């Protein structure tokens, strides 16, 4: 006899929620997209985003389906340290906050993170950087598509392919019509829903389950989760931290927001987003740890958080969880679609294939990039349902290898171009090797360590001409 986990919501309720919110996001996207009259408007929301929208979009983008799924999984696998480890991802936002000021200072008219790497480190490092960021962005996008399909199936019984397809379709549609205006506008609404929803769900679960009961149950059934000396949990601490730092420091999702936010607002908005995001993994993790005392069997740690919350809170609560999950998925998928399509249009299409392209052509290329990315992501999600952790953590070494070249390149003119290239290359390669040879908890950590050592030693050993800061704004304006 095959017994299967029963969905919390009926598929009809799930489809109604999807229809209502999917339509709402598309309508908001189309309305806000009218403001995008030129390329800057479409790609960077006119470079005039304020504090509230800025903090909201950064926070909502960082609350991904991975937060909803992996934070509870971390808590279930690594206990208290697991929750702390996941929280360290907010350090990326905290440390990037002062960096946004520098970005505005040296690249006031920049479009992408690739712009900086190309001008600062040259073509060789730029192409390697593009390879890293495209691999990571696709892994992130695919992992979210997969997560979305699985979550909608587990919560409402919606078939995996249908759930995943609807999420991707909705996000592609409003990103296509509205560009970054639509993304930031919907992110604001979504962040408000996520914040209220997570706080409410967390409080209700604590109220129902009880902290004492949860502690007692975990102590008996999973004793190591409460121990300080849990080896894999300790290992995940710095690995997760460098993964988060690498993601934020290199990816165009964050650079495009840095460009889009007003200069005086960007650092504060990123710092505030970090503080708003910080408690979310703890709440999500605690919800998962409440499963045992509440009599809920965990079959898949990746979906434990939403399924536990949905089961505990009844139909109304389950609808709330469904909406929060949908918002967290959409807020990240749209950001990645927009930022990665910018990178493809600006860095790949204009810089590699058509240097004479005007803004209208580049905008058209961005539209096609959104569509193409959506289609490729859909295909990869349709054929692959492999472990989300594997897809995501494999790219940890790659992104962590960019942290030091980015920081040193932004602030120190003597940072060597060759050293930066080899730092990213060796960090990426050894990060991936470590992932397979040492364990999943070492990829990003090794990538960061190796990259730092190579860029520092390489710069010390090589005597290159100091970088002329005037090249950044002047070459950047040569569109």
């Amino acid at each position, binding site marked *: *006899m095959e017994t299967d986990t029963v969905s919390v919501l009926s598929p009809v309720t799930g489809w109604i929620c999807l229809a209502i919110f999917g339509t709402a996001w598309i309508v908001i996207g189309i309305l806000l997209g009218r403001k995008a009259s030129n390329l800057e408007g479409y790609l960077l929301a006119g470079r005039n985003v304020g504090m509230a929208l800025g903090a909201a979009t950064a926070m909502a983008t960082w609350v991904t389906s991975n937060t909803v799924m992996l934070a509870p999984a971390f808590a279930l*696998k690594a206990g208290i340290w697991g929750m702390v480890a996941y929280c360290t991802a907010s350090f990326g936002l905290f440390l990037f906050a002062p960096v946004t000021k*520098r970005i505005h*200072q040296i690249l006031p008219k920049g479009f992408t993170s690739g712009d900086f790497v190309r001008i600062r480190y040259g073509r060789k490092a730029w192409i390697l950087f593009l390879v890293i960021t495209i691999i990571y962005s696709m892994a992130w996008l695919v992992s979210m598509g997969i997560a979305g399909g699985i979550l909608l199936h587990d919560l409402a019984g919606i078939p995996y392919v249908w759930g995943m397809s609807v999420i991707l379709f909705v996000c592609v549609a409003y990103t296509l019509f509205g560009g970054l205006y639509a993304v930031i506008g919907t992110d604001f609404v979504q962040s408000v829903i996520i914040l209220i929803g997570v706080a409410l769900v967390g409080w209700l679960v604590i109220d129902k389950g009880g902290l004492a009961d949860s502690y007692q149950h975990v102590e*008996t059934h999973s004793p190591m989760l409460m121990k300080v000396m849990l080896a894999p949990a300790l*290992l995940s601490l*710095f690995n997760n931290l460098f993964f988060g730092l690498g993601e934020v420091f290199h990816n165009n999702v964050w650079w495009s927001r840095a460009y889009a936010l007003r200069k005086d607002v960007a650092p504060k908005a990123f710092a505030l987003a970090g503080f708003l995001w910080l408690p979310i993994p703890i709440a999500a993790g605690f919800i998962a740890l409440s499963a045992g005392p509440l009599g809920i069997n965990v*079959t898949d740690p990746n979906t434990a958080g939403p399924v536990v919350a949905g089961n505990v809170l009844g139909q109304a609560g389950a609808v709330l969880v469904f909406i929060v999950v949908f918002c967290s998925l959409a807020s990240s998928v749209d950001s990645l679609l927009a930022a990665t399509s910018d990178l493809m249009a600006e860095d790949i299409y204009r810089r590699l294939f058509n240097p004479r392209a005007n803004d209208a052509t580049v905008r058209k290329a961005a539209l096609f990039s959104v569509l193409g990315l959506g289609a490729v992501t859909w295909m990869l999600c349709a054929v692959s349902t492999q472990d989300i952790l594997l897809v995501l953590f494999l790219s940890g070494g790659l992104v962590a290898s960019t942290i030091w070249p980015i920081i040193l390149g932004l602030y120190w003119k003597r940072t060597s171009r060759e050293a930066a290239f080899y730092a990213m290359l060796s960090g990426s390669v050894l990060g991936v090797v470590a992932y397979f040879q040492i364990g999943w908890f070492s990829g990003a950590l090794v990538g960061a360590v190796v990259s*730092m050592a190579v860029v520092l030693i390489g710069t010390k050993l090589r005597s290159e001409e100091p970088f002329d*800061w005037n090249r950044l704004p002047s070459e950047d304006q040569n569109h």
Partner: protein
Amino acid sequence: MIQQKPVAHAIGGIGPLYSPPVSLVAFCVWLSWLFVAFSSGVTQKSPVFTQPGKDARLIGEGVLSLEWKFEASGEKETLQRFELERADNPKFTNPDTFEPDQETAFEVTGLKEGVHHFRVRAILTEGQQKEDQPGPWSETLTVEVSFAPVFVEPASSLEGDKEDYLNEEGIVPLEWSYEPDTEDRTLERFELERARDRKFSEPVTYQPGLDTESFLSGLEEGDHFIRVRAVFEGGTVTPWSKPLWVKVNYVAWWKVWTLMGLGAVVFVATVIAVILGAARANREVPDAVKENAG
């Protein structure tokens, strides 16, 4: 006068031996009986079940592997095939018949819960004879089949001399299958137990409900044994499954401290780099920015 004893009495071999003529007749009759007995196959050997043991109890999903041994009693005998029978009664009324050919092993599938009786015999031909000569049936093997859940992920081995699952993180994703046979019982839930010894002396109980999957985490270093059973409405239960042997070996501490030390150094260096960079940012700016600031 010598009274003669009835021959019939003498055939039994207990007649008086003082009558030579009668004894001779009895001896001849006895020889004839021996000849007839051998030629009719009364002493022919029957197969002997070797697997499972006598009065076996099968806990699983209704799949039984049978093995037997057989030696033909004469050089002229040729084994044609074996004939295997199963019945739910010891008299083998309405038996199921299986033909394992000349193999001395056979896997019977689809067994229902309850007591099953098995017997096997060899079908032989002798010399130039073309007709099959069925040998005697083996002793009856009685097997009681009780359905219990079976771990499929990780799968529990039958040998039990090596762990079924080795893990560095203290986690075990579990999946089992269960095919209840009886229709008069309603499955209420599964019950999962974990213990540090094979005897399950101090078990910790988990309640996976009706799911056939579960996920255990936070296990202490060392051996763990896990078993599952089904609980029906009214409180009846299946036997426990074969225990799953899980060994948790956490990552070596030297590796943990090495990686953590490296991580701490790089993190502190990163924070210092950003702070120092931000502090000196105004010194290294493009001229255009300086002009605007001025």
